[in-house]
Each structure stands twice: as structure tokens, then as C-alpha cells.
């Protein structure tokens, strides 16, 4: 499924699909840097399923809308050529067609949904290529910034995540306070970050580049600034970056974490040279308490 996705659109010859291809090109032109301009395999397959589903439906929706308009215009009161059938209220054959058309569409779509839900389950690992092992990254949504922990490299960063290009990325995600959604539009779909729970999302960036990420689940007054950058770099540069990050900056221990967990907005990216071992699990198990929320008396009426 994953490898065949893009061919599905281009390889088909039905008129509905051709019309869709034209529409998709027009949309993609207007929507560069969006979800229809994917920069990795997950985003590509999700975009292609989206377009396939759209094609299946447009093949039925466009004729339906034309029929609605056509009947309304042809049978207008002033048209003397139209044959009136004022008692025509039932036809078994039409009823059969009327139930069959949407049923058939849903049959197609149902298959697509079933296959797509499984092949693109965010928890499903991506195939590794030699020399590009899966990179583990733990993500903690805080009020209102993103903390990225690299357990293997033993460092952490805030609001920017540097990743090796071409390697599968395994994000383990939780929240230290309220719900958020982890979303990098050009790399693929989103998943919720929830306190006390762990979600797993696999993504991959094919080539070096910078990709905007953001929270997609409203999380309070600082929500609009809850952005981060995914910086995809060649593997060698990634190793250099990790070495540099380990050489400078503060250490993320319990005290530093408690300070970070306080509400703040628009935090500029920075890195931690080291991380207290097991920090992610301590957040997850609430051994480190959830974010404190707003300072008392800050809100109207309280």
C-alpha cells in the first residue's frame, strides 16, 4: 500500500480521476508547503489516500449535482417542452439505483478505509534502510512549548527537533499538562499528546530541509505560539549537531524540568546538554507532577 500509493492516482484512466488529477494539481499549486506537498513516505501515502477517496466520491458527486441542476432547470414551470408527470412518486427500479449508488461508493471507500487504517496506523514501524536506523525521539507537550528528548544521544531540545534525513523517526508522545496534537503537515499525520498516556507516531523526512510543526489541539492562551521546527539534516551532520549540543547548554534535571513546565509563550529554541535518565517515563507515570497551570489570581473572576 505504502509504496503503491502515489501510482494509484497517476496510473488510473477513468475520467473522474483525470478531472481530479487536474483539480489536485491546481490545489497543490496553491497549497505548496501543505499536506499535499509531502516530504516523506507517510505524508505521501496519506495524501494519496486522501486524493483517491476524493476521486471515488467526485465521480459520483459531480454527476449528482449536474442532475440536480439539470432537473431543476428542465422542469421549471415555464418550460413547455418538459413532460409533466405530477403523480410520479415511486419507481422500484429508480429506488434500487438510488440505494445502490451510495452503497457501491461506500463499499469502495470501506475497503480503502480498512486497508489505509491498518497500513498507515501511526504506531506501525517504518522499514529501515541499511545505515539509517530508526531514530527514537520522546516528545513532551508543555504549556506552551514542545520538549524533545533524545534518549540514545542523552540530550534534549525545546521547540526545535533535529532529525537525520532518510531515517525512520519514532516519536513517543505524551503531555505534561493539557491535551495537544503533534502535527508536522509536510511529514504526515498528527496524533494527540495526552497526560498520563503515551502515543506513538512514525514519520520520516526523505531529504534535508526545515518543516514547520505545530499543535493541532487547542491548549489554552499560548496555543498559537506552540510551534516547532523539524530540521532534517544529513546523518553525518546530525551526529555533529548532537555532539555540539552535548557540549553546551543547561542540564534537564527535575528542577530544570519544573521550571520548564511553568506556563510560557513563544519560547525560542534551545538545547539541553544532558537529560535526567528516565525523565520521559517519570512524566508519563506522573512521578514528575503535571504542569502547574496558571498562577493563582491571574484569571478574571477567580
Amino acid at each position: 500500500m505504502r509504496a503503491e500509493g502515489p501510482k494509484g492516482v497517476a496510473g488510473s484512466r477513468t475520467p473522474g480521476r483525470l478531472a481530479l488529477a487536474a483539480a489536485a494539481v491546481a490545489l497543490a499549486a496553491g497549497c505548496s508547503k501543505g499536506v499535499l506537498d509531502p516530504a516523506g513516505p507517510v505524508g505521501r501515502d496519506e495524501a494519496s489516500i486522501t486524493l483517491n477517496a476524493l476521486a471515488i466520491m467526485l465521480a459520483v458527486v459531480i454527476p449528482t449535482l449536474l442532475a440536480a441542476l439539470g432537473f431543476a432547470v428542465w422542469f421549471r414551470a415555464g418550460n413547455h417542452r418538459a413532460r409533466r408527470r405530477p403523480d410520479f412518486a415511486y419507481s422500484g427500479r429508480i429506488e434500487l439505483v438510488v440505494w445502490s449508488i451510495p452503497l457501491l461508493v461506500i463499499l469502495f471507500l470501506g475497503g480503502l478505509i480498512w486497508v489505509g487504517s491498518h497500513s498507515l496506523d501511526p504506531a506501525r514501524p517504518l522499514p529501515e534502510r541499511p545505515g539509517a536506523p530508526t531514530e527514537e525521539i520522546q516528545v513532551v507537550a508543555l504549556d506552551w512549548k514542545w520538549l524533545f528528548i533524545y534518549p540514545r544521544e542523552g540530550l534534549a531540545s525545546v521547540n526545535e527537533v533535529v532529525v537525520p534525513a532518510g531515517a525512520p523517526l519514532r516519536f513517543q508522545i505524551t503531555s505534561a499538562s493539557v491535551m495537544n496534537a503533534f502535527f508536522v503537515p509536510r511529514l504526515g499525520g498528527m496524533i494527540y499528546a495526552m497526560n498520563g498516556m503515551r502515543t506513538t507516531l512514525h514519520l520520516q523526512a526523505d531529504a534535508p530541509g526545515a518543516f514547520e510543526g505545530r499543535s493541532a489541539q487547542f491548549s489554552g492562551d499560548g496555543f498559537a505560539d506552540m510551534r516547532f521546527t523539524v530540521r532534517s539534516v544529513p546523518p553525518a551532520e546530525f551526529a555533529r549537531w548532537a555532539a555540539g549540543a552535548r557540549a553546551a547548554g543547561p542540564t534537564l534535571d527535575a528542577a530544570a524540568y519544573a521550571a520548564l513546565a511553568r506556563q510560557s509563550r513563544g519560547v525560542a529554541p534551545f538545547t539541553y546538554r544532558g537529560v535526567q535518565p528516565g525523565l520521559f517515563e517519570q512524566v508519563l507515570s506522573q512521578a514528575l507532577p503535571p504542569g502547574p497551570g496558571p498562577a493563582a489570581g491571574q484569571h478574571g473572576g477567580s
Partner: protein
Amino acid sequence: MLGKLTWEAVPWNQPIPLIAAALVLAATLGALAFVTATGRWTYLWREWITSVDHKRIGVMYVLLGLAMLLRGFIDAVMMRSQQALAVGHSAGYLPPEHYDQIFSAHGTIMILFGAMPLVVGLMNFVVPLQLGVRDVAFPTFNSTGFWLTAAGALLVNVSLVVGEFARTGWLPYPPLSETAYSPGVGVDYYLWAVQIAGLGSLINGINLTTTILKVRAPGMGYLRMPMFCWTALASSLLIIAAFPVLTATLAMLGLDRYAGFHFFTNEAGGNQMMFVNLVWAWGHPEVYILVLPAFGIFSEIFSTFSGKPLFGYRSMVAATLFICVVSFMVWLHHFFTMGGGGDVNAAFGIATSIIAVGTGVKVYNWIFTMYGGEVRFETPMLWALGFVFTFVIGGMTGVLLAVPPADFLLHNSLFLVAHFHNVIVGGVVFGVFAGIEYWFPKAFGFRLHERLGKAAFWLAFTGFWVTFTPLYALGLMGMTRRLQHVDVPEWRPWLYVSAAGVVILAAGALVQAVQLVVSIRRREALRDVTGDPWNGRSLEWSTPSPPPAFNFAVLPQVQGLDAHWRAKQAHLAQPADKPRYEPIATPRNTATGVVVGVFATLMGFAVIWHIWWLLAAGFVGAYATFVVFAWRDRDEDEIPAREVARIDRARLAGLRARETRA
């Protein structure tokens, strides 16, 4: 004495809410002064406020809904203008603390205090007339339901000046809505306003279900009911099944906030996703509660304005009940992104797309209703055709979002926002406007101005697509919803176009207001003397416009579908027998509903601000009101046969005059 309430609760330093509140206050005082100056208090009290007539209550619901629709629209104008202005380094004119309240209030008001009262109002007004009966099953209960809804609406609007509204979105997901992260009174305003109005909705659901199941004209079998009654029945059943879920869910959140429980908190084993599951177990049926009656309205309109019976009536009934049942099995599609796994997502994705079968069947049946008909493009029909176009596309993007991998890309983006406005505006709002245009002559005895109505339609239709097409594009570009400011400069042109669309929509709203004023001023020229201005098919058109308190002078004997159409055909062949008029008992007016509404408002306000003595006083007052009502001596008035005969003969004279003209 006043709990948490202090002078600081009023946002003295924020000009926007203060100006808005001053305007609302001025409008209210102006209306009160007008009523006092023209000496209409007695009229208002006797004929409207204490009325238990389903038609009056229906009209009051619609007025409440229109006022709240306007309030929600003003919120929308502020949101779209804020996003258009706050691009790049600009912060716009609304700080997050205020912007977050606005989008939360917009959603809450539009769904619960705008769309609900509009839909419920039309059902209340029309259903008993279509069933050929004189009233609903529980008239006083009905009035109480309305005043509870109004109490909830009042509380939401009080939050504009006293305290704040929720800053959590229209569904207050925990833990954000828990005391730890929302310590203010905003979420409490939400909770109690929605709880009180929700009780009103439940009352209405019980009343309409009982009416449709138990109170029908002689001969009105289930499969002779007009389509609108079927959709009203499905919607009312959904209300009865779904609203208690909402009440229980919000009660649990209330216990968390007020009594230190841990249903949905981060600590002590609370589970936030339990709230999300439960609230959508109500939330998804809720959209069908709104849209099914709209389907009913369009069924009536397609049939009437094509001069044909509804095509595939039994199929339509089946599709309605199919949607009614399946709508309870799809709630999880609102959160595919929680990581539930392939099986869970696939099951709910497929269930969701199956609903589209029922809707698809309906669309085809409307199209075939026009086939072979004589289609008249009067204003209600324009709304109906605009609906088909808009709703089909909105439905398609909805099914697209039911495909989990597509939803992963588009969930909580502006694409999602565009989708649900596409179905709710294109379905429910267009349906309600079509219904108001269609039944207005029945309610008030004169038509609305035709050309202004058409102008309003075209402005609304164009405005809708100019506003929301850019949101689809922005969603595909990765723009998420509820952003107080926007950091990507490339999105700016799309946000400008969308804001321009809002201007067109505002022009449409203005034309509708002008249409109402012009129609009232020219009411003599637009007068409907026959009771049947559209050449209608169902029984409401066999009564005078406006119908007398008792609706039908003589209860109709229903022979089949399209009862009024049948009667008209038969009468053309041979004149009807001379009717025998008898005295009619109608339920007495009562102030129970409005008094309970006042006490409910006080109780809500008291519990929001922790004023416990006022809560107790409100409860005692409400309970006492019920006791007084329960011990009433008389509950019906009698209208003498002479009066019934006089009213009916006037209608028959109008009909004869039209026949001689024709």
C-alpha cells in the same frame, strides 16, 4: 454574601466587551421602553410570555434563535477579522484571553442557542399543524422547556460582562477545562448555561415524541405523516437518547470542578479521554438532531414547489430512521488521532461513511421529486437548491475526513472547520431560512417580500462559498484552527478573501432584516387570505393564516399522504358538507414556564459565583412554582362554537374568493 462575585468581575479595562454589553443593554432597554410606551405589556404577557400555544412558543424559539444567530455571527466577524489582521508580527486587536472566549462562545451559541432553538421552534410550530391536531401533548411543559432554553442563553450573554466565558473551545475538553488549568468562572458559565438549556431541549424532545406518537388527527397513520413529522420524530428520539449523556458528562465535569472529584483530571486516575468519548456520544447525534429536521423542511419544499408528491416516501422514512440509529455508532471519528489503532479507526471510519448512504438516498429522492414536476423558483426553493449543492459538497468532505489517514492530515485544521460549516450552514441554517420563508405566511398571515428574499439567498450563498473555500485551501496548507495569530505570511491572501466573504454574509443578514421590515410595512399587499399561499400539500395549509388558537375548527379526517392536497382535489370535484362546529377546549395560559425560567437563571448565576443562599432560594422558588401549578383548579378554557364557526367561515370565504378569481 455574593460568593466570588466582586466589582473586578466586570472587565472595566477591556473596551470591546464593555461596548458590546452597552449595545445589548441599550437594545434591551429600548425594546422595554417601546413596549411600555405603547402600552403592550398586558398583550405581551397574556399572548406570548405566558402562552402555552405551540405556535406562539415556536415563534418565540425562532426569535431567540435568530437573536443568538446574530450574536454568534458577530463573534464570527471578530474571529475572521482577527485572523486576517494578526499575520506575521502583528498581534491583531484581540488578545488570546479574549479571542479564546470568542471562538468558544461562537461554537456554543451557534449550536446550542442558535441552531437548536431555530430547529426546535420550527418543529413546535409546524408539527401539530401537520398532524392535524390542536396542540402538543404537554403544553405547559413545552413552555417550561422554552424558558429554560432562554435562561441558558441569558447566562451565556451575562458572561460577556460579569466574569468571562469559557476559553476552552465549544466542547470543554479536560484537563484544560479542569480547575487546575481554567480556574476562572468561564467554564462554569458554560456548564450551567448548557445544563439548563439542555434540560429545556430534553423537555422539548419528550414533548414532541409524545405528540407525534400519541396525538394525531383521525386517520393520520404513521405512513401518512408528512416527511417533516418523521424527521421531527427522529430528531426528538435522538434528543431523548443523547441529551442525558451530555447532562451526565457535564455533571461529572461539574463534580470535578466544584467538589474535587477526579473523573477527568490528570491526577488520581482521572481519564480525559472518557470525557471526549462521552461528549461526542452526544455531540455526533446532536448534528443529526439539527440536520434531520432540515431534511424534513427540504422534503416539504421540494414536493410543494415541484407540484408533486415526495418521490420515494417510504425510502425517505427508512433513510431517516437509518441515519437516526447509525448516528450513535460513529462518535469516535471525532478523535481518530488519539492513536486507537487500525481496527478501531477502520470500524468507526466505515460506520461513518455508511451514514452517507442514507443521506445519499435522500438527495436522489429530492432530485427525482423535481423530475416530471413543475418547478417554481420561489425563495424557499432557492434555499433548497442551494442546500443540495452546498450540503453534498460538505458531505463529501465529511466522508473524506472519515478516512482515518486523511483525517490524520486534516483533523483540527481549517479544512475541518470548512467541512462542518459546509454541512451546518448549508444544511441547518439554509434549512431554517427556507423553513422561515415557507411557513412565515402561515405564522403571521402575510408573505415575506419575494425579491428581497431572493437577494438575501444569493448573498448568503455567495458569501458562504467566498468565506469557506479559502478555509479548505488553508487547511490543506496545514493551518490549524483556533489560532489567535498566524505566523505564515503566505496564508494572508486566503484569510483576506475569507474575511471578504464574511462581509458578503453580513450584507445577506442585513437584507434579511430589511426584508422583514419591508414585509411588515407592506403586509396588506402581501396578505394571505386563503391559508394556502404556496399551493401546499400538508394539513397546515388547510388552516387560516395565522391559525386560530385551536388550529382546526373541525379535526381533519386523513385519507392518505398529502392530506390537504387530496382534500383540495376532492373538493374541486364536489363541495364539502356543511361543517358542524363544536365548542373547543384549549389549555389555559400559565406563568409556570417563565417563572421557572427566572428561578433557573438565578440558580445558574448563583452556582457559577458560589452564592449558595441564592441557589437555595432559586430552588425553593422553582419547586414552589411547580407546586402551585400542580394544585391548579382549572387548566382549560372553552372557545364557544359560535366563535369557531365565525373564524372558519372567514377562511372559507377567502378560499372561495380565490377560486372565483382563478
